[in-house]
């Protein structure tokens, strides 16, 4: 964003806060106008926050609530179980209450443990997703597990290197993983080691590249049929 544009947005927001919405609406460039509107919303929200500062009583109540131990989420509990059974596999820093971050090394054994252990009993693999975290960083596989017996669910994330993405296959642990992993392989090129039939599932076998990666480039022709690329400057 140029300085000129920033100045324009700032002026317009100030005017709008004083009740002159026209200043924002009259900006001709569409992008600048939407940015100005976003800035206006932000400014209004901040103004509302400062005016509704909580009183001292409320503050003391809040601090009392904070001192109580927060109950661990299921993901954190299961992460603890995995860490005790398989030391060094859980990435504690990246794990949170919403997911468990694992190292790929012992994933197959962990998966079997999660399925069979009476405290876990994750008998259904609901989804396997690949995620491209951006051109500079790594690829990630995410597993959503659910237990019919305990009616609880967790999410497991495993990172793998972009230039050589390899993750152990859990196709033999949960059979539904067969197609899930094939699809993830098809779209992201993540190789699931130990998968008995790792082929593309949606795209033709002779397709080039991995379409859902951020750095994917559409191939120019397919069996002599021209594949048009995205036109530049299109909005």
């Amino acid at each position: 964003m140029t300085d000129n544009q920033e100045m324009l947005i700032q002026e317009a927001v100030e005017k709008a806060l004083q009740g002159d919405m026209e200043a924002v609406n009259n900006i001709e460039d569409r992008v600048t106008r939407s940015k100005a509107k976003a800035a206006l919303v932000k400014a209004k929200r901040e103004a509302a926050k400062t005016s509704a500062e909580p009183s001292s009583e409320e503050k003391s109540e809040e601090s009392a609530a904070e001192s109580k131990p927060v109950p661990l989420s299921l993901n954190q509990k299961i992460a603890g179980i995995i860490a005790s059974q398989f030391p060094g596999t859980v990435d504690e820093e990246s794990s949170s209450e919403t997911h468990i971050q694992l190292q790929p090394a012992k994933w197959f054994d962990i998966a079997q443990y999660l399925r069979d252990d009476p405290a876990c009993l994750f008998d259904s693999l609901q989804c396997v997703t690949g995620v491209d975290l951006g051109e500079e960083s790594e690829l990630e596989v995410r597993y959503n597990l659910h237990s019919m017996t305990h009616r609880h669910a967790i999410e497991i994330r495993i990172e793998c290197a972009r230039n050589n993405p390899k993750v152990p296959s859990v196709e033999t642990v949960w059979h539904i993983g067969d197609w899930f992993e094939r699809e993830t392989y098809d779209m992201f090129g993540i190789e699931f080691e130990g998968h008995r039939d790792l082929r593309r599932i949606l795209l033709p076998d002779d397709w080039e590249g991995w379409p859902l990666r951020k750095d994917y480039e559409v191939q120019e022709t397919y069996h002599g049929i021209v594949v048009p690329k995205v036109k530049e400057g299109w909005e």
Partner: protein
Amino acid sequence: MGVFENKFHDNVVIASLDKLLGWARSTSPWFFQFGLACCAIEMMATAASRHDLMRIGMIPRSSPRQADVMIVAGTVTLKMALRVKKLYEQMANPKYVISMGSCATSGGPYWQHGYHVLKGVDLVVPVDVYIPGCPPRPESLIEGLLKLQEKIQSERPLTRKTA
């Protein structure tokens, strides 16, 4: 009919063989029954009892060998494009192709960012009638089929073409 007038009984019709062939072929274009996407739902609705394609002589056939018309109903992916081409090649001459809906005609909503979508089925097979719509209503499809029938009727397969 000039010299032939009143020379035959009432139940005899006289016409040139070309016209007769055109009439016969245009009123029974059997279509190849396969759908690729949501357009196929409209095609099924057209073939079903309310719109009843059978009344204009169109019978769905499940084999390309028995079909005269191929209705490409839906999004053609690049993977399917090769198969569409192969199916077209398996049909017996004379054969016709109807491109039904935006996707088959130009790629439709995927015309730019669909990396795996064929941008128009006319890139792989010659198309006779294009039907716009997303998806086209049965009325549109019938209109397109009637246009195709007109085209078939106007053909003169036995007439020698002069340069």
